């Protein structure tokens, strides 16, 4: 009896293999796998429900810096432009000074207000100005240092060129290091 059923089963699988893309050997192995499943006394037929898939559109997502990518989504808008994303959020760009600066004082109104009514804690210049002044100071320092080095070199050259010609060389400049 069991012999008979296996024969009939293989006969049943044959037309499926002709209509499918897969090679017949794969299907037969799949069949043998499914027959090895041990059913514990369920005699009812189970409905094979077709899987439901929502319709999806291809959408172009344009990030705030102009980079873009496509993805499948259920929203029908063809192009999505984002204003706030990983390219301009502080959490993803923790060292970006542009994003840290929350205060936008283009017209200088806030600065003017502070100059007039500011108390001890906000009478100072805002952080950006402080940064600018600090940068200027640094540049000046570097320039001064370079000038000093240049001068020192000149002095040494003078020393070589004027060796033996002058009785009293000019007093040597104090070295920085």
């Amino acid at each position, binding site marked *: 009896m069991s012999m008979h059923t296996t024969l009939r089963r293989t006969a049943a699988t044959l037309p*499926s293999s002709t209509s499918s893309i897969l090679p017949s050997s794969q299907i037969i192995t*799949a069949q043998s796998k499914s027959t090895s*499943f041990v059913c514990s006394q369920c005699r009812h037929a*189970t409905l094979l429900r077709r899987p439901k898939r929502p319709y999806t559109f291809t959408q172009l*997502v344009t990030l705030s810096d102009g980079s873009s990518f496509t993805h*499948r989504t259920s929203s029908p808008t063809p*192009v*999505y432009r984002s204003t706030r994303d990983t390219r301009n959020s502080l*959490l993803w760009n923790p*060292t970006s000074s542009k994003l840290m600066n929350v205060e936008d004082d283009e017209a200088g109104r806030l600065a003017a207000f502070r100059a007039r009514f500011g108390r001890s804690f906000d009478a100072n210049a805002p952080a950006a100005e402080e940064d600018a002044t600090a940068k200027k100071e640094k540049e000046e320092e570097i320039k001064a240092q370079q000038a000093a080095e240049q001068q020192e070199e000149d002095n040494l050259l003078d020393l070589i060129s004027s060796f033996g010609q002058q009785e009293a060389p000019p007093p040597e400049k104090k070295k920085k290091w």
Partner: protein
Amino acid sequence: MAAREPSRYLARGLPRTFVPSARSQAFLNRRNVSDEAPARRLSDQLEDLETASSLTTSVSESAASSFDPIARSKTRKTQLPRGRYQFRSPKYDRGPLHPHQPPAPSDPSSRLFVPGPFALPRAEQTYNSTVASDILTLCYVHTPPGFKPPPKAPRLREWDDSSPYHKNRPLRGPRGGDVLRLLRKPIKFNNIPKIERITLHSYVKEAAQDNSGWLHVAGIAVQAISNVRVETFKSKASVANWSLVPGRDTVAVKAELQGENMYHFLGKLIDVVLPRLKDWPGVKGSSGDSSGNITFGLEPEQMALFPEIEVNYDMYPPKMIPGCHITLHTTAKADKDARLLLSAMGIPFYGKIVQ
């Protein structure tokens, strides 16, 4: 006119030169291939982009007049086989002993066949091109040749034979608890952790108290953001305050994302949604089930920031928009590796990082 609108956006958005940002990778070790590319090619991706909403499409006159399927079939020399001569999968599975067996689900003629994948999502490309090799490099542990790791104690302990009753007992569990943790093998090229599936889960307690509308709205909202049909679940717990009875009230909605849907959702979540959350510090560093699955939650007002919900926000009753829990299942065996993977994909973590 409607078709011209997006093309204007495209023309504006595309030729922009990409400025490589000098971001430091201290907090988030996230890296994109596009960060280093001098000019990116979008032309091949744009071919399958629909230029306008499909709701406003109109068929051209010539296409409509030339469409005549009957005349076309008459010009054929040999007719196509009729539908009833083609193989149709049986509607019911009648058990393993029935002679008429349904084909395997991977067979296109099967009723359970799901076509796809249709696209290579950006998040998946990022994983394959940069994240996987980065993780492999970061997890490399050098062992000199001839090195033998010290032998470890067995995970399940044996009973000391102090009592005659110890004979034939099953082995004891590990010290300090009954839980047998997953075995973490050294990460090699063939077991680089990757994201396996994402579960969106939403528990709507009002569905038991009020009406089923809450559950319908939650299901549609979760389906809209995930592209996957949801499953519903009945309550298992009994809570008197919420008038919950186990087995009676349907209270929860779940969507399981795998493969292409998962990567589309992940990319959208990281690039568009998470940066828009107000005062969001990141995912808590102690989250995770200690076997490589990380969970975090979104509030209802944060769920409304998904572009799919935002685009027709009026469709949802504003009170009824649900929150949800997002579980990222990874193939990592420890939370440490899972966090490494997810932070490389772009999910920030905050607080004390529990390993």
